[in-house]
């Protein structure tokens, strides 16, 4: 980073070439959701009933439970990226930024972990 010209004073600040990774990860996880969420919606729509036995038996099968685990990983990751961008636009105070950074790096992981444990519990036949 130089200190002479105005471009020299700002070069190296900003995203410093890391912004592209966030952008690309958002797109890649979007493609994942484009497959996974319609699979979930069509599966739910085609079920004869939505009582416990029917839905549990469906979710316990290998392909649906794999899809559900992937949904837990992919949707929470995609949501985490998108919510971060929203918060970056609206939270300006330094203390708020720290709180938001903490939440965005912990809550989605906790949510996904709870979801994955639930699906594994269904798939392995307990409860």
């Amino acid at each position, binding site marked *: 980073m130089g200190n002479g010209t105005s471009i020299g004073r700002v070069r190296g600040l900003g995203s410093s070439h890391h912004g592209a990774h966030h952008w690309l990860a958002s797109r890649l996880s979007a493609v994942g959701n484009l497959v996974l969420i319609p699979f979930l919606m069509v599966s739910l729509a085609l079920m004869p009933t939505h009582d416990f*036995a029917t839905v549990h038996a469906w*979710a316990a099968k290998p392909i649906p439970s794999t899809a*559900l685990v992937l949904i837990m990983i992919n949707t*929470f990751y995609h949501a985490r990226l998108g*919510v971060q961008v929203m918060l970056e636009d609206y939270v*300006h105070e330094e203390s708020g930024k720290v709180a938001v950074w903490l939440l965005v790096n912990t809550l989605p992981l906790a949510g996904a972990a709870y*979801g994955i444990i*639930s699906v594994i519990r269904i798939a392995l036949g307990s409860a």
Partner: protein
Amino acid sequence: MAQARSSRPLSPHLQVWRWGPAMLVSILHRVTGNGLAFVGLGLLLWWTGALASGPEAYNDFLNWVWIGEGGSFPFVTAILGKVVLVGLTWAFFQHMATGLRHFVLDVGAGYELEANARWSVITLAFAGLATALFWAFVLLR
């Protein structure tokens, strides 16, 4: 907020611009995305968590969100539940359509004023239509 205290002019915000389709769907992309993130994923976890916890927890979930029996409180939440589920379906289709629009814009196409406005309106029409068809199929078949 450091910028607000300086004497430099603020960039113009929502109230300054004349509303157009591209502006609307851009805002909707953010609103639906965050709605899906907070409400949608919350409901997804409640659903899978209840399904993993057994028939009693799952029937409670169904009752709160859809059936609404046993008092005025579940009755009200079941109405809200239906509104939220239809809303989430629409939010998904809208977010999906505007997301696909972003893919097109990402490769550098669709920036001409007319094409941009046309595709923006198409995402709105698609989301409304897809939501109606999905729920018609679920409820009427």
